[in-house]
């Protein structure tokens, strides 16, 4: 019974556990429950991946109502790949979260952190797994609403303003997505994504279908923070509690990019999406804009979290670029980068979380000379930093290598200088942190290491695992690269 209901359990389990955290009302028990549920979710996504590799696709009729009438959960390789990324990030982040959370969130609100964390996980997993366009919208809103709530849990009052801005942006995006789903329903009379794609292939190419497409792209663009629709992201990542920024940076934008890929390649079909309006050039320009703007802004920041937020905007540019190339290699490069960047950025943010835990600041200037007092943290920061630059033997190199190869293969050689230049800018912004920490003398007014706090062992362990993953997938790439190529092949040849 369990193995046939895995797709439902993947989403229902964190959903049921979330209110349990409120009932438990105890921060240790809530933390244990969260880690346990994340572990089980991770186990389920591994099992689903195994099943998909054997059977190719799994469909699950929710409540026994068969598609296209009922809500269908649809799992192919792409779904399983994304589920694996999100659930593994969730396990490792929740595992390391406790020490930092007790430091950064008022103690009577800690159990609420775990509740919203699990709700957010429910939403993200649901967005990935669902095969129903309207259900997709509902899960997007579950994920978004819980992320607005989780951002305002911090002690810093600026997080409230950041969350409110995010709420306004996010609601505009969600409304656009809803309008798009509504228009598609009017044209085709169905909401099932597989059914929709068949109906759209036969339907006349009317203005309604095009309007729905544009609404959807704008809506998902806001949610995924694709340049120039990224304005909510820097504030939301900077002012929220560090563990929250860590989790959001590793998961939210990736999931919405997944939805973009699903819509462009599975639902509309890339011939419609790209060839009718030369839409891919538009995406390419925004991607290049994101890479240059994000990296340039990152250089100017003094706050480490803000620096990483702008770097995220640049990295989203890389992923969008891969999608816009419309080749198997390009799509594969994009998928590989989604996988690698999830772990790189979470690694970097966890290092910053550790720094904030020890020094109560993330200002680069004030951290001058601090590599002496906490050498391990900065070494682990450096490893993930090298990975985001794209140094060989790290996972970042693999994704950039395939992206450059894909741009050349598709004939857009002028993209290569942009990719390389953005990486050079990445050397500068990571280099600034390293320079300050290792080579600058300690300031007189420098903050001293807070000895009263215990070493955050779990946080260190989780940070260490992410650094290990960054190097592991720079050397042994059979898992993610092969998988990404298979997925890209299936999506393009469809």
């Amino acid at each position, binding site marked *: 019974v369990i193995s046939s209901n895995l797709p439902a359990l993947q989403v229902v389990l964190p959903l049921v556990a979330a209110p349990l955290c409120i009932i438990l009302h105890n921060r240790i028990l809530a933390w244990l429950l969260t880690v346990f549920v994340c572990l089980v979710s991770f186990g389920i996504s591994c099992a689903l991946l195994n099943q998909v590799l054997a059977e190719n696709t799994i469909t699950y009729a929710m409540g026994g109502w068969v598609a296209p009438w009922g809500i269908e959960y649809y799992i192919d390789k792409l779904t399983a790949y994304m589920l694996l990324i999100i659930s593994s990030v969730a396990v490792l982040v929740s595992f390391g979260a406790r020490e930092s959370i007790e430091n950064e969130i008022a103690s009577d609100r800690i159990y609420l952190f775990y509740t919203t964390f699990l709700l957010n996980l429910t939403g993200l997993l649901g967005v990935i797994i669902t095969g129903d366009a309207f259900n997709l919208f*509902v899960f997007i809103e579950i994920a978004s609403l819980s992320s607005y709530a989780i951002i305002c849990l911090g002690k810093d009052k600026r997080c409230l303003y950041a969350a409110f801005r995010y709420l306004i942006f996010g609601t505009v995006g969600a409304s656009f997505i809803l309008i798009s789903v509504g228009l598609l329903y009017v044209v085709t009379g169905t909401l099932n994504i597989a059914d929709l794609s068949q109906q759209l292939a036969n339907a006349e190419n009317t203005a309604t279908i095009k309007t729905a497409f544009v609404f959807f792209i704008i809506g998902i663009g806001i949610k995924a923070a694709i340049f120039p629709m990224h304005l909510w992201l820097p504030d939301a990542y900077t002012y929220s509690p560090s563990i929250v920024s860590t989790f959001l940076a590793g998961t939210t934008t990736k999931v919405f990019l997944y939805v973009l890929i699903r819509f462009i390649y599975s639902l509309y079909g890339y011939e419609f999406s790209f060839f009718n309006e030369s839409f891919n050039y538009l995406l390419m320009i925004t991607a290049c804009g994101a890479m240059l703007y994000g990296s340039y802004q990152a250089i100017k920041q003094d706050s480490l979290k803000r620096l990483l937020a702008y770097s995220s905007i640049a990295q989203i540019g890389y992923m969008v670029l891969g999608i816009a190339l419309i080749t198997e290699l390009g799509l594969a490069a994009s998928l590989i980068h989604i996988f690698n960047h999830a772990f790189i950025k979470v690694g970097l943010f966890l290092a910053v979380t550790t720094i904030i835990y020890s020094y109560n600041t993330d200002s680069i200037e004030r951290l001058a000379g601090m590599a002496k007092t906490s050498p391990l943290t900065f070494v682990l920061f450096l490893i993930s930093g090298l990975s985001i630059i794209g140094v060989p033997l790290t996972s970042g190199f693999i994704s950039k290598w395939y992206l450059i190869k894909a741009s050349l293969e598709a004939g857009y050689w002028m993209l290569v200088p942009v990719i390389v230049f953005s990486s050079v800018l990445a050397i500068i912004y990571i280099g600034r942190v390293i320079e300050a920490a290792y080579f600058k003398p300690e300031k007189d007014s420098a903050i001293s290491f807070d000895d009263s706090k215990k070493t955050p062992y779990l946080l260190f362990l989780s940070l260490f695992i992410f650094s290990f993953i960054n190097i592991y997938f720079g050397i042994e790439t059979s898992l993610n690269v092969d998988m990404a190529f298979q997925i890209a092949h299936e999506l393009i040849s469809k």
Partner: protein
Amino acid sequence: MGKVIDGTAPILTESSTLYSSPLPHVLILTAIVVGISTTALGLAIIIRIHTAFGTIEDDKIQQEIE
């Protein structure tokens, strides 16, 4: 959108077989629920902004943040 001409309300009875589509109502209801939750959360955040900053004027909050 869901109305079928001469169709009855979508209730299973033996007297009629032609009925309007209930789906648009379900979708709109769900969208309303989502909208209400968003508004509620937004207002809750505004209350907390007022407690934290002592004002809900956008200009003053931005000044204070910078």
